[in-house]
């Protein structure tokens, strides 16, 4: 047999590899590989059997070619054959090839599993190890299925060799990570824990990785490991560096094992058993003591290993957070590292200190290092370390050192890296606010902040300063003075202009006494910045100007001149133009009293959580240190909402909560809804010209016509009735829209506006009298209960009725509205169907194509589907169809149906009783002018009703 004499050198492989390496170009390499592949193919052709050596050699070559990036589509069989060889090298190459190249769907997987099974049950430890390594490397689901039961058995069997146990533990860990559902906890779990007591350190190290992972998922089952781990740890820590021979690394006994033990302990709370706890504390103290000892070696590996253990120990101490003594000691130890010349150590020390700072026991201890940390912030070369230093400063800040820290951070900001500037700005802003003793300091700080790093000051920060200034009377004068001074700098940041404009607009009068800051000077100062600013800032400045007119009547003519100039009143930006026009009119028409009311000083903002803090949290993500801790006892102010910045009329005159809550509350007060109702009336009744003249200009629609005599909303329960009464089918027009004219004759016009959210809806009915005579005894009855409307409608006037609707269950008939009134003695009677249809309670649902079809298939019961084929009533315009389907309330899904002509929608009908998911498909046939509509929903009545409703729409 030649194979025996050739040995394991595989000269052919070496020659091939050197050939490839010597190739001058890619083409030459490909040629060489093609040649080799052809050679291997001819060898594998199978007309003569290959010996194990050549098989191994060729499989090796194939593997090499594969690793060079070429496709290999043969040779798997030969590799599998190698698995059954008895020679270690051949088996090893076979396993190597399989681990690298086999994909799980291969039909060979059965053969491979079989070979692995054989090896696992063999008594040969090396073969078992090879098999285990292969399982771990492939780690596929199939492998897990086949061997998840087998491996724990090997792991805990008494007669298994140590090396096999190590492999088995790690292999099980891998399988558990890839498919945790297949690795079942069983009676072996307790025995795994006892592996911590194993004689062999390697086994312990491997087992502890497994236990850590398992105990994170099922902490209770592995609780017993704590005491075992502590005793193991104490044995290692107390051992001399020579005791553990093979497991001593540069004079440190078993560093990896120690780290893993400490990490395992971090999964559990401090041990309750006093003895165990005492022992653990002793261990931790020993570790801290050892850190003080002079190093036994100058090698970097020695200090690395020692420090690794130390840092894990400190993490554990922080995790327990119950031993003041240890915490302080840890802090001192870290303090030493702060000045270490190893950058990594400094980084780690700063990071750990951040967590220490949040502990009540060590907070003071951390504070002693403030000078060092500030120094680190200034002199550190590595940006990530500087970032940590900034974090730590933030964490250690409290009332006593706030001024110093904020000052340091501000001065650092000037040179800080761009990447961390925004975060720094937020932190400074938060600290300044949180620990502000006097608010003039706060204002100074923030203005400084804007001056230094204006670009990085987010909206929230300057909103916040304005909120605070407005809410606190004592700083207003100071703030006005400071911003005035700040604005005098030749180049100001835009944010500064915003703050300045706002504050001077509100409180400019407080400093107007000084001739240096007389009203005109203030105005000129602000206006000198005007042209350099963006549109939102200009808008804000315009609002400030109108406020000036109120505060200082002597500036009126100057400001009116500015507003009248073409660059304002004819500005291409519609917002600016509108403001200029409105303010100009307001200033010239309104009397001083009106002006004073409209342009009154802003009322204090409601107290709310600072949005800056929220922003910082978002930036840092979960796990941010000591942010939560900041929240408590915090004096929160409301976010400066759109009203402040927009500063438009309604916000100035009525900074109502509706400005930012609009659409958020389920039942806003009627007054909040009234302006919008009024504006609706304007367009509903525009041709009727019913609008009474208002004294203010028309965009100051604080009081619409409907507002004066609007009835308070009547909460009426809407209960579905099976009323088989057919009436005016006007309601059908409202299937796909919510607003419009419901009914109109010579006498009466009924406008409707409705909005729906989930299973709730609100409908405004506007009854407009088109005649000049009043309607008397005007009553409306809904076939469900409702509150009466104003019994009198003046000629040319209108009244409003609000109906609150709740959908209890699905329904098919709309409620009826009966209206009776006397017009010139004659009794008028009118019955209308209210346009409330089931589709109004749709919640649109977006879904991907396959989701849609999956659900479509799920709703396949015959009664769940309703289909209709009908002729088109209107032109088949895609855009119109789309608009209608959107108006229906469902989500129109694009790119779902393979035919782009078809429309596919999905939505959920919200009723109080249940939610009915519905899917819809509309297939237009342009040639035949026909549609096919298919509706599927989880409730048969809904499908049918929807189908009926929709069929009449197209």
């Amino acid at each position, binding site marked *: 047999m030649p194979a025996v004499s050739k040995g394991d050198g595989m000269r052919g492989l070496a020659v091939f590899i050197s050939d490839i390496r010597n190739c001058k*170009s890619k083409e030459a390499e490909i*040629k060489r590989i*093609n040649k080799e*592949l*052809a050679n291997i193919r001819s060898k*594998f*052709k199978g007309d003569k059997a290959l010996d194990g050596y050549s098989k191994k050699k060729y499989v090796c070559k194939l593997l090499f070619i594969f690793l060079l990036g070429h496709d290999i*589509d*043969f040779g798997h069989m030969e590799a599998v054959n190698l698995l059954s060889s008895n020679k270690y090298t051949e088996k090893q190459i076979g396993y190597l090839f399989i681990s690298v190249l086999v994909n799980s769907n291969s039909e*060979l997987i059965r053969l491979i599993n079989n070979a692995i099974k054989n090896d696992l049950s063999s008594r040969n430890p090396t073969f078992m190890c090879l098999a285990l390594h292969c399982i771990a490397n492939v780690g596929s689901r199939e492998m897990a299925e086949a061997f998840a039961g087998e491996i724990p058995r090997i792991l805990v069997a008494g007669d298994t060799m140590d090396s096999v146990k190590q492999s088995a533990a790690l292999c099980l860990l891998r399988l558990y990570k890839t498919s945790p559902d297949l690795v079942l906890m069983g009676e072996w779990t307790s025995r795994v824990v006892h592996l911590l007591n194993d004689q062999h350190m390697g086994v312990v190290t491997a087992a502890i990785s497994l236990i850590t992972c398992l105990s994170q998922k099922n902490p209770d089952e592995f609780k017993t490991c704590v005491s075992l781990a502590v005793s193991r740890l104490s044995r290692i820590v107390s051992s001399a560096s020579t005791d553990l021979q093979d497991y001593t690394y540069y004079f440190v006994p078993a560093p990896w094992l120690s780290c893993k033990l400490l990490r395992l302990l971090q999964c559990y709370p401090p041990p309750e058993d006093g003895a165990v706890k005492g022992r653990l504390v002793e261990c931790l103290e020993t570790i801290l003591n050892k850190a003080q000892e002079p190093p036994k070696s100058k090698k970097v590996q020695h200090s690395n290993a020692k420090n690794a253990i130390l840092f894990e120990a400190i993490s554990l101490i922080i995790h327990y957070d119950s031993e003041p003594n240890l915490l302080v000691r840890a802090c001192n130890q870290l303090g030493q590292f702060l000045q270490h010349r190893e950058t990594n150590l400094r980084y780690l020390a700063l990071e750990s200190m951040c967590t220490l700072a949040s502990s009540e026991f060590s907070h003071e201890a951390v504070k002693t290092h403030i000078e060092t940390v500030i120094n680190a912030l200034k002199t550190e070369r590595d940006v990530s370390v500087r970032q940590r230093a900034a974090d730590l400063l933030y964490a250690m800040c409290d009332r006593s050192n706030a001024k110093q820290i904020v000052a340091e951070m501000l001065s650092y900001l000037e040179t800080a890296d761009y990447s961390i500037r925004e975060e720094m700005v937020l932190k400074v802003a938060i600290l300044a606010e949180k620990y502000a003793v006097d608010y003039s300091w706060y204002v100074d700080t923030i203005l400084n902040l804007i001056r230094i790093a204006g670009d990085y000051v987010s909206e929230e920060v300057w909103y916040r300063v304005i909120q605070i200034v407005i809410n606190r009377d004592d700083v207003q004068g100071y703030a006005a003075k400071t911003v005035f001074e700040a604005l005098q700098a030749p180049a100001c940041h835009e944010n500064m202009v915003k703050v300045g404009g706002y504050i001077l607009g509100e409180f400019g009068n407080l400093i107007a006494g000084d001739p240096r800051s007389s009203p005109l000077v203030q105005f000129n100062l602000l206006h000198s910045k005007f042209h350099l600013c963006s549109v939102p800032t200009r808008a804000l400045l315009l609002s400030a100007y109108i406020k000036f007119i109120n505060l200082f009547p002597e500036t009126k003519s100057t400001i009116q001149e500015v507003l009248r100039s073409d660059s304002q009143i004819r500005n291409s930006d519609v917002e600016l133009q509108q403001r200029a026009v409105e303010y100009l009119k307001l200033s010239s028409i309104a009397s001083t009293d009106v002006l004073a009311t409209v342009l009154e000083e802003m009322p204090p903002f409601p107290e709310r959580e600072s949005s800056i803090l929220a922003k910082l949290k978002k930036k840092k993500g979960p796990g941010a240190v000591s942010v939560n801790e900041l929240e408590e006892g915090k004096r929160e102010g409301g976010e400066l909402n759109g009203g402040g910045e927009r500063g438009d009329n309604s916000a100035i005159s009525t900074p109502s909560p509706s400005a930012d809550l609009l659409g958020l509350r389920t039942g806003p007060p009627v007054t909040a809804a009234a302006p919008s109702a009024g504006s609706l009336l304007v367009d509903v009744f525009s041709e009727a010209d019913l609008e009474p003249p208002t004294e203010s200009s028309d965009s100051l629609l604080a009081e619409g016509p409907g507002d004066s005599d609007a009835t308070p909303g009547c909460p009426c329960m809407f209960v579905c009735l099976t009323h088989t009464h057919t009436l005016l089918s006007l309601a059908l027009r409202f299937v796909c829209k919510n607003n419009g004219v419901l009914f109109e004759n010579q006498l009466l016009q009924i406008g409707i506006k409705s909005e729906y959210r989930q299973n709730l809806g609100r409908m405004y009915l506007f009854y407009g009298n088109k005649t000049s005579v009043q309607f008397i005894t005007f009553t409306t009855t809904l076939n469900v209960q409702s509150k009466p409307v104003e019994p009198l409608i003046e000629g040319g006037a209108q009244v409003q009725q609000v109906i609150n609707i709740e959908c209890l269950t699905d329904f098919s008939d709309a409620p009826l509205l009966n209206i009776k009134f006397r017009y010139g003695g004659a009794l008028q009677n009118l019955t209308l169907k209210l346009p409330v249809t089931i589709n109004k309670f749709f919640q649109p649902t977006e879904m991907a194509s396959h989701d849609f079809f999956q659900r479509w298939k799920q709703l396949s019961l015959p009664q769940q589907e309703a289909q209709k084929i009908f002729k088109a009533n209107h032109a088949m315009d895609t855009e119109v169809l789309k608009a209608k389907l959107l108006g229906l309330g469902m989500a129109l899904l694009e790119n779902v149906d393979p035919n782009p002509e078809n429309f596919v929608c999905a939505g959920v009908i919200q009723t109080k009783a249940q939610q009915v998911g519905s899917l819809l498909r509309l297939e237009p046939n342009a040639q035949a002018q026909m549609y096919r509509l298919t509706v599927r929903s989880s409730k048969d009545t809904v499908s049918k009703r929807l189908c009926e409703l929709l069929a009449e729409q197209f």
Partner: protein
Amino acid sequence: MIGGLFIYNHKGEVLISRVYRDDIGRNAVDAFRVNVIHARQQVRSPVTNFARTSFFHVKRSNIWLAAVTKQNVNAAMVFEFLYKMCDVMTAYFSKISEENIKNNFVLIYELLDEILDFGYPQNSETGALKTFITQQGIKSQTKEEQSQITSQVTGQIGWRREGIKYRRNELFLDVLESVNLLMSPQGQVLSAHVSGRVVMKSYLSGMPECKFGMNDKIVIDKQGKGGTTDDSGKSGKQSIAIDDCTFHQCVRLSKFDSERSISFIPPDGEYELMRYRTTKDIILPFRVIPLVREVGRTKLEVKVVIKSNFKPSLLAQKIEVRIPTPLNTSGVQVICMKGKAKYKASENAIVWKIKRMAGMKESQISAEIELLPTNDKKKWARPPISMNFEVPFAPSGLKVRYLKVFEPKLNYSDHDVIKWVRYIGRSGIYETRC
């Protein structure tokens, strides 16, 4: 305009680096090496963009030539320049290889100084360049010679100097064509075109004026109108339709546009007079008839017949047929009646070579290919069978009708010039699907 020009060897080491503009830094050199040369053929486009810098490259054997620019240049111009640059280098030191470039780098820098000025291409006519850039050290030139060179290079006819004298006035004209074909297995032509070049070598005295005529359809038809019906019928058959053509700078384009006659004062020595392309009435010199039969999963039978389709008196040369084999080929047996055939594993193909073959002949090869069963279900893509050959005629049908030389100042006439005309048709991409 071109900002810089770099020449690399196959490893990506810089052999020549010449930067013409400040916007190109040294890092551009590395960017090209890292992103193109070392990209292991991932980059296949000749134009690549990194960091707002465009790299145009051509490859000659193992040498990469890359022109770099930050501006929006005419890419065609840059490539034309790079090709010209290659021509110039070959004219000076024959083959472009790493060795030759290293040995001639002073010369190359000298050339680069001359043919690119601040990134603008200048006179790259080899003949003209050779008058003042020589390989034999510095030749001291007299004042007259210097002024002569200056006036020539800056003058109207920059490609030819005055006062050339030959004892024997000779003209060589080669029509070189490459024919490209893609044919379906059933013998249907899917696409075919001929791209041809007219290359001349002229050794003429004085400043002669040449006129070149060929059987261009437009010219023949124009003449046919004036001549007899008999004549036009005859010439109509022979004339060819040229799709597009480009000329050497010496050709008077205004004359070509108005009269479609090609007249020029030729440069001295070798040059390419024109390039053209035709797509109609192409004579396909060979027809390949493939027959592929798959016998079970492990065997494939291939039979390929080639037929020559030209005058029996002519001889085709250097015929090579390349039959691709599947990627899982494990063994091949070939039988051919003529020539030699061999399975080349490194190229995954059977290569069949025939030295010579006369027109209207037929030859055949049959091969049995054994396959190794694979677990891949992918079917073999059956790449086309390609062919190489050389034939002594122009497959486009182009004929040189005349080449007249006028030299009014010197006393030799058209008849005294010895003219040589040669036609060579080569295969370009000549493929038949199987």
